[in-house]
């Protein structure tokens, strides 16, 4: 069997460990593994009539090639957010444009099927989040044998309790929070720590829980900044070191407000016009008159080496995905449920959205984690 493997969406630590484990598992049983570069873009931009594009978009993987890759973060295959079922003209390779003038999104699934056939790929292991896996599902519908591996540091792929990258993101955030304490304490300030997590607030919630933050603002629960200010001032008063800290998801929003997306906004103004963390910091400063530390953790949550839990899950997911394909099972998503490794129908990724379990883990009145009844819960609490 010839197995293709690719990584899509944002990079997370652990992808290389997955690539290595799947390769070793499959090659060990006498199969071939082809790495597809830059996610689905590698298949979209590959022209079967042009051998050069085959060379630049694929890489043969064997135990020698993958021997040392698990020691670093990111993905040796590189990644993209391309979805071949919805390709705008600007993302279309010239050989597929065929004289088109409009910018409507076009479906190039048939081209991808042709490319897979040309490469002689019998089965695919795509590693990605919601978007990447939605096209995996599309290929499954077209009859391509697929076993998918969920990754996202937000931990928001529906159908699994755990996605590769989440543990490292939380580990890093906890470390940075503790580093910021000395500055916040020395200057007796209020600190707002903004974390990635657009729709799911789990990174904010769990990091706050594990680091003992005073408050946590999460994407799922709109917050009243006046109330947050009152809480933080109270927290500061009670802290012998006279400071208070809150985490905030980048996707959080004020009560009655829209989600605020920061970005490459005009800079010195970005403190005001930027992300929700900057806006919250400004508002807290105005309400309380206190000095504010605003810190985005951002890319540092997902850059660099995986922690041991992400290694554990990345390797096991990949071994399981290869196992399934080699035994002839496909159309599955490898997953963790209630602390156990399982495989579930790939369809689950479009049957819902995964968000932080607010009822079980969060106090919506106090704006902080509330975790009770741990007895019997799986290791990650969900």
């Amino acid at each position, binding site marked *: 069997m010839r197995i293709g493997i690719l990584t899509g969406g*944002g990079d997370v630590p652990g992808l290389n460990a997955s690539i290595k484990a799947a390769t070793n598992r499959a090659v060990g049983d006498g199969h071939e593994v082809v790495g597809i570069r830059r996610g689905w873009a590698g298949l979209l931009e590959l022209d079967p009539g042009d051998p050069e594009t085959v060379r630049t978009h694929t890489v043969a993987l064997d135990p020698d090639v993958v021997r040392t890759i698990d020691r670093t973060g990111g993905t040796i295959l*590189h990644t993209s957010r391309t979805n071949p079922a919805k390709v705008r003209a600007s993302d279309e390779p010239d050989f597929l444009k065929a004289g088109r003038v409009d910018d409507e999104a076009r479906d190039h699934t048939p081209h991808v099927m042709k490319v897979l056939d040309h490469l002689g790929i019998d089965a695919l292991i795509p590693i990605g989040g919601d978007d990447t896996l939605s096209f995996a599902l599309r290929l499954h519908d077209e009859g391509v044998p697929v076993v998918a591996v969920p990754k996202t540091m937000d931990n928001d792929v529906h159908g699994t309790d755990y996605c590769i990258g989440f543990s490292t993101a939380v580990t890093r955030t906890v470390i940075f929070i503790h*580093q910021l304490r*000395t500055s916040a304490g*020395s200057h007796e300030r209020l600190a707002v720590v903004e974390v990635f997590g657009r729709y799911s607030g789990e990174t904010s919630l769990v990091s706050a829980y594990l680091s003992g933050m005073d408050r946590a603002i999460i994407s799922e629960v709109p917050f009243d900044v006046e109330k947050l200010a009152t809480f933080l001032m109270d927290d500061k008063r009670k802290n012998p070191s006279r400071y208070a800290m809150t985490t905030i998801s980048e996707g959080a929003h004020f009560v009655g407000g829209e989600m605020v997306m920061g970005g490459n906004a*005009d*800079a010195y103004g*970005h403190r005001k016009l930027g992300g929700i963390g900057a806006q919250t910091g400004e508002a807290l400063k105005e309400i309380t008159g206190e000095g504010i530390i605003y810190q985005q953790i951002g890319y540092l949550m997902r*850059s660099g080496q995986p922690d041991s839990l992400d290694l554990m899950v990345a390797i096991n997911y990949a071994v399981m995905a290869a196992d399934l394909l080699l035994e002839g099972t496909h159309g599955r998503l490898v997953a963790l449920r209630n602390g156990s490794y399982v495989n579930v129908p790939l369809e689950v990724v479009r049957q819902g959205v995964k968000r932080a379990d607010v009822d079980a883990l969060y106090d919506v009145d106090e704006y902080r984690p509330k975790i009770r009844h741990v007895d019997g819960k799986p290791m990650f609490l969900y």
Partner: protein
Amino acid sequence: MRLGVLTGGGDCPGLNAVIRAVVRRGIRAHGMEFVGIQDGWRGLLDDATQPLGIAETTGILPRGGTILGSSGANPYRFEDGPAKVVATLERHGLDGLVAIGGEGTLGAAARLAEEGLKVVGVPKTIDNDVGGTDVTVGFHTAVQVATDAIDRLHSTAESHDRVMLVEVMGRNAGWIAVYAGMAGGADAILIPEQPFDLDAGCDHLRHRHASRSSFSIVVVAEGAVPKEGTLELPEPPVDENGFPRLGGVAYQLAPEIEKRTGFQTRVTILGHVQRGGSPVAFDRVLGTRFGIAAADLAAAGGWGRMVARKAQDIGDVTLAEAVAQRNLLPPELYREAEVFFG
């Protein structure tokens, strides 16, 4: 002799090492007594002090921040500020002051010294921009934090074939940017001292991406400025002390780089994590040695002076000199270490 100790300006890792060393050395070698001044000069303006002895400085060496608290308060910006400072020192029977700080704190110390205040200074700032010394407490920890971040960001930049702009602190000086950039293998470094030409920089990036690599790491000091006439950037707002509030220049440069190169460009601003957390070994040793020297300086009546370290240059020697004799630890340095034994 009774001394007050204060830490002013932005906190940085290694301050506690200085405080601990001043106190231990002062008590053990010179029979001094100490009073901790809270929150920099503000503690002298408002008479806010805390006990400071062996017990208070036990176990603080690896801790970041400062046990005394800090502020940017400047006595010369308060009515009768200098007089209040003197009055507080007298009220507590203090014979002198150890001021640990950066250019703001030491600037006030220099003026007060001219007016007769007995003060010795210890230079600290992660920016490393205090004159008269080649290195300040906190700098090397900030460089380590920034270097670690640059190392890690390589994996994300490479996975996405992107340009990653890493903004580090450095208001007037490019020390952190250049040290962390050199240590982390940055592909370009933008600093305040060398106004940059973005077009030329983007040519480098294009060349690199065309020939060798699909990603780049660019380190930007927060105070970096474009060459005159090459790029218009809005003026930063000013804070309550009239200093420009920097931070965010990377956000302005990212779209400009994307526009010029077509490469996706993302921003990471390291911000306060550079000065938080536990000091690296270098800053603990530097802080400790500065602390010992400051206590000795005060004991010798070296008021109006700052402890300093000179060790920047790379030189060369003959190979014969290098092998003629081993480089052994100087006995004076061992005696400094002995201050903390037992």
